[in-house]
């Protein structure tokens, strides 16, 4: 099984979710994160002193899929997440040794 971690623009979350569901990927987990990358932060001001906000709000979506669905998932996310502007985000893929469904204690891909 593969774990796909996609760090994306927050306002793209809905599109990505819909695209994944359409492609039969029904499980995912969302995290609010702050990111630094190439995208520039912005400057805020308070009582006359400026300060730099480097960390930008992003959303990290974690999707665990069977190996054979990884390609679909990745393509789907990229398609829905892309705007072409700096800051579109990154996708990291890693290997999951095992998955368990708590309710049924099923293990492996059937747990997804």
């Amino acid at each position, binding site marked *: 099984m593969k774990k796909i971690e996609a760090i994306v623009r927050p*306002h793209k979350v809905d599109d990505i979710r819909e695209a994944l569901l359409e492609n039969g990927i029904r499980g995912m987990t969302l995290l*609010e994160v702050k990111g630094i990358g190439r995208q520039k932060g*912005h*400057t805020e*001001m308070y009582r006359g002193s400026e300060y730099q906000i480097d960390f930008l*709000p992003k959303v990290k979506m974690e999707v665990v899929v069977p190996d054979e669905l*990884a*390609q679909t998932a990745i393509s789907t996310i990229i398609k829905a997440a892309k*705007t072409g502007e700096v800051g579109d985000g990154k996708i990291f893929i890693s290997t999951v040794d095992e998955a368990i469904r708590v309710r049924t204690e099923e293990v492996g891909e059937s747990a997804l």
Partner: protein
Amino acid sequence: MDNKVILDTIWVLVAAMLVFFMNLGFAMVESGFARMKNTVNILSKNFIVFAVSSIAFWAIGWGLMYGNGSGYFGAEGLFGLSGADNSPASGDAYAGVYSALSWATVPLLAKFFFQLVFAGTAATIVSGAVAERIKYLSFILFSFLLVAFVYPVAGHWIWGGGWLASLGFWDFAGSTVVHSVGGWAALAGVIVLGPRIGKYGKDGKVHPIPGHSMPLATIGVFVLWLGWFGFNPGSTMAADPTAIARIAVTTNSAAAAGLISSTIVAWVLLGKPDLSMTINGCLAGLVAVTAPCAYISVGSSLIIGTVAGAIVVFAVLAFDRLKLDDPVGALSVHLVNGVFGTIAVGLFAQDQFMPNTTGDGLFFGGGFGLLGTQLLGAAAVGAFAFVVSYAFWQILHNTVGIRVRPEEEHEGLDIGEHGMVAYPEFAPSPERYADPSLPRGPSSPSRALKSSAEVVLERKT
């Protein structure tokens, strides 16, 4: 000094302070109903708008509204309260250029202060309807124009001894003068601005954009309800015990009835008692009773409030169907119920309460006369306020611009316009970020897509 002057002045000033406090009410309702990312902007708008109104009304608005002149606008003592005036002398003893208020036995500056807080209310109504997309500067400029020109001219017609007053049009505390003028100006703004990005789907579907804080909105509605005890009973501009006690009760009853009826209508119609509708319903009752409050019985005020509370729910749904995007329901509350309240005078007025004013309305045997005048007045003021406001918005649109850039709208006006955020230390909820304020859907087809994805699998499996 004469006891009556002292009593009336205390009453007028206390009432004016309560009306002033409504600025907090509006600020809270409107920021509560807006999103987190636009909170500093709304707070700033609702804060500065009263300051701008104070200057504009002092500089020119007061003179246009209450200066002696034609039936259409004031012409004497126009600028900076500069006209002759021997208030608190009143009636025949009055000598000065602001004769329309010569009946009030309070000093000039008490009259001015009381009228100023009403002018400010008209302006602050606009703020909510145009929220979450308007440029800060252009809102400030429009507020100035509204309070300097639109509000006082319409006000002159009715409270300044102008042509509508002569025809026998009655608006006790301002359903038309304040609320529907503010509402029409807001409507013009909403039309020129267009809806917030993402509010209406291409399919015509309405995407609700929930407000970020119900506690703030609730603070706001209680403060407004309190303020209305200055707004309506204070509009006697005299401490007339029977009148002010009655008006306090009609005002409260309409608020209570509007609150309950909007709750029931929402519960039945939409399945749940939506707090945001309940808040609007209470305000709708208050707006609707503002014109008739002094001329009606407590029973009538309960009916007026009940109807207003139902109207507001349907109005909110209707404006959304018309794709007129009003984040806080200002149009449904102030415009629609301002008009309804004005008409209600023609239906529910009873001569017995304020003899020699309205006479009896339709439901109390007075026939269609009063009703007709009220309809005419509501229409005339509406046409004037809407057209002139529309023109002002267009001028601003073509000069300083009225709408922020889409990226700024998406990121939030707080950072774009003010360089700060309202709640820097609170984490936003991830999925709520998924707001509809940027265009959805797949972007440009992704040429390299297949290959890259394949690479992944090739390299790994």
